């Protein structure tokens, strides 16, 4: 007697969802159909049926490869299915990146239940200029609401796709089509002009220890941009390694998005190797087109443990690929700041703009600078 495998398979799909895969019901249905076409008793067939229908990105594969043996037991006849992305398993939920369970919520001057909309306009003005690293829990809560309301117009560029206009070069196709409607009489010329497309934006957020007070807000800010950016915005964290968190930030719900991003970042609050990590970005993503003619924004204080020379080399490569490079340094807005950290000095020649990012007001200025 063979037991019905169905509940087990659906459970596997749920486990994958838990591991962060976007497993939808239609994908589960496809998984079951695929198994129907294959030998269900074969472990390899089951592995591939799931991998082909439930994954949709290289990031998914590492997670799938972890969840599969956890659910179906270890493989007795090993068959390598190497995946190039060999990240460490994501760490457990990062408290500092998620709200609700911070534990320090009640330490603040106001209780956690303080209704955020009762804050007066002048309090909002004050908050806009407060140092993001020194907010009380209640202010942080209020800031989240303000961030969600942030008006972002994203940068655009001229596109090769053309669309009808009143002037501009003649459009032979539409002109002829109009003529056919008039029995071949050419009465007027139709025109065509370039349309505008969103320009790519790449955000690189330093999540090393010295940036810890700002990282939560910056990742939230990135979430707002990803949600508005319709596929044009890519987000990476940098520290001792490069992690792409764009997919995690696509969740509509900011808390879910941040929790997912937190799980994906392996080097939270660690050291920095800015030069190496920027190099990895240029090589792995830049040349694929993510940085090409894009607005690249680096959020970092420039504290560099590695060689400043290496950082300069990588920045010059990035500069050649990108449309604009903007560096946002939270410490730069503070009184008495002069760019002296080795890292910042090394990158200055390659920047289009150096901005201060220590308050909401400066993030608003950044949004302006990006569309310029």
């Amino acid at each position, binding site marked *: 007697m063979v037991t019905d495998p169905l509940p087990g398979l659906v459970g596997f799909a749920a486990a994958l969802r838990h591991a962060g895969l976007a497993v939808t019901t239609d994908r589960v249905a496809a998984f079951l159909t*695929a198994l129907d*076409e294959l030998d269900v008793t074969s472990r390899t067939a089951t592995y591939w049926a799931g991998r*082909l229908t439930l994954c949709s*990105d290289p990031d998914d594969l590492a997670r799938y490869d972890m969840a599969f043996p956890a659910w179906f037991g270890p493989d007795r006849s090993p068959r390598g299915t190497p995946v190039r992305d060999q990240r460490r398993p994501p760490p457990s939920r990062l408290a500092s990146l998620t709200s609700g369970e911070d534990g320090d919520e009640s330490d603040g001057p106001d209780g956690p239940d303080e209704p955020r909309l009762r804050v007066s306009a002048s309090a909002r003005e004050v908050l806009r200029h407060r140092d993001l690293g020194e907010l009380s829990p209640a202010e942080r809560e209020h800031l989240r609401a303000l961030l969600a309301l942030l008006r972002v117009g994203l940068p655009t560029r001229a596109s090769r*796709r053309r669309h009808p206009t009143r002037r501009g070069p003649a459009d032979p196709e539409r002109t*002829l089509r109009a*003529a056919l409607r008039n*029995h071949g009489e050419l009465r007027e010329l139709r025109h065509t002009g370039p349309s505008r497309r969103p320009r790519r934006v790449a955000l690189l957020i330093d999540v090393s220890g010295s940036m810890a007070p700002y990282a939560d807000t910056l990742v939230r800010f990135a979430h707002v941009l990803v949600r508005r950016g319709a*596929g044009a915005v890519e987000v990476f964290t940098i520290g001792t390694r490069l992690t792409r968190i764009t997919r995690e930030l696509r969740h509509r719900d900011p808390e879910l998005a941040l929790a997912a991003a937190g799980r994906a970042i392996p080097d939270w609050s660690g050291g920095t190797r800015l030069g190496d990590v920027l190099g990895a970005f240029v090589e792995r993503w830049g040349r*694929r087109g993510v940085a090409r003619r894009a607005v690249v924004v680096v959020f970092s204080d420039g504290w560099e443990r590695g060689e400043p020379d290496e950082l300069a080399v990588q920045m010059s490569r990035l500069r050649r690929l990108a449309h604009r490079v903007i560096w946002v340094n939270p410490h730069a807005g503070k009184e008495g700041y002069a760019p002296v950290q080795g890292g910042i000095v090394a990158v200055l020649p390659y920047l289009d703009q150096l901005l201060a990012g220590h308050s909401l007001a400066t993030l608003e200025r950044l949004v302006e600078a990006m569309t310029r």
Partner: protein
Amino acid sequence: MTGSTTSGRPGSPAELAVRLRATGYLPDDGLATAAFLALRMDRPLFCEGEPGTGKTALAQAMAQVLDAPLIRLQCHEGIDASQALYDWDFPRQLLHLRALEAAAGASAEKLDADVVEASLYDPRFLIARPVLKALQTSPSVLLVDEVDRADDEFEAFLLEVLTEHAVSIPEVGEIRAKTPPLVVLTSNRTRDVHDALKRRCLYLWLDHPDLTREIAILRSRLPGVPERLAGQVAAAVRRMRELELLKPPGVAESLDWARALQLLGADELDVASAAASLGAVLKYREDADRVRAQLDTLLI
């Protein structure tokens, strides 16, 4: 597994693997399963992976296996339906119109506008672009190459066609495939393709082949290359892929390298023959310089 299949269609991944091998394309388990399921489930196959890992060649090999024409749509920025689906042949339509008018003038008849319009938008003036051609040709393999270069609007359009296996042309009506074409989409990941489109597909990630398979690919594509040389090339290329080069060599580059060595008359890969042929495997100068400096360690 049930054995009954439509004529010419493989009955199992293993059978498909045998038939792919016969064309010179060497699949692994996952690839054979993916292509088999794509046929059985009428689902597009979405292939992603490093350059030169055999995405385009897979579509070509499947066309051979199915004895079906390969119809290719190369995507680019700004591509739209008139380049992918169909277009009207305006010059010929105009000629036709002039002919009608001339005939009417001769017989002093008045042209009926509706009749004229209907005859102008006759299917014979339709220029079928790749997607329409694939729907009209059964069986066929439709290769949508580098879909990541197109934009979202085009993805939405593809999604619709690939879900329906049909298009409707206002002046002509619906054109539906008799048997849906096998659709292979490839992406180089310059940007994320929308999830709605990926969800309709089987997702296949192509990695560089393992050592044994890469040697087998070299031997199958270049029968003149001695086994020993093929092994050395494959091993050296594998080490190069670990170096984080600007452009890590793919299978295409291994093949180019082996071919170049063959032309040089080298039957072994040593520092001299490697240095002389490095340009065949590394396409960027920076990469070639880096590797040249450590050639001896790459050729153990």
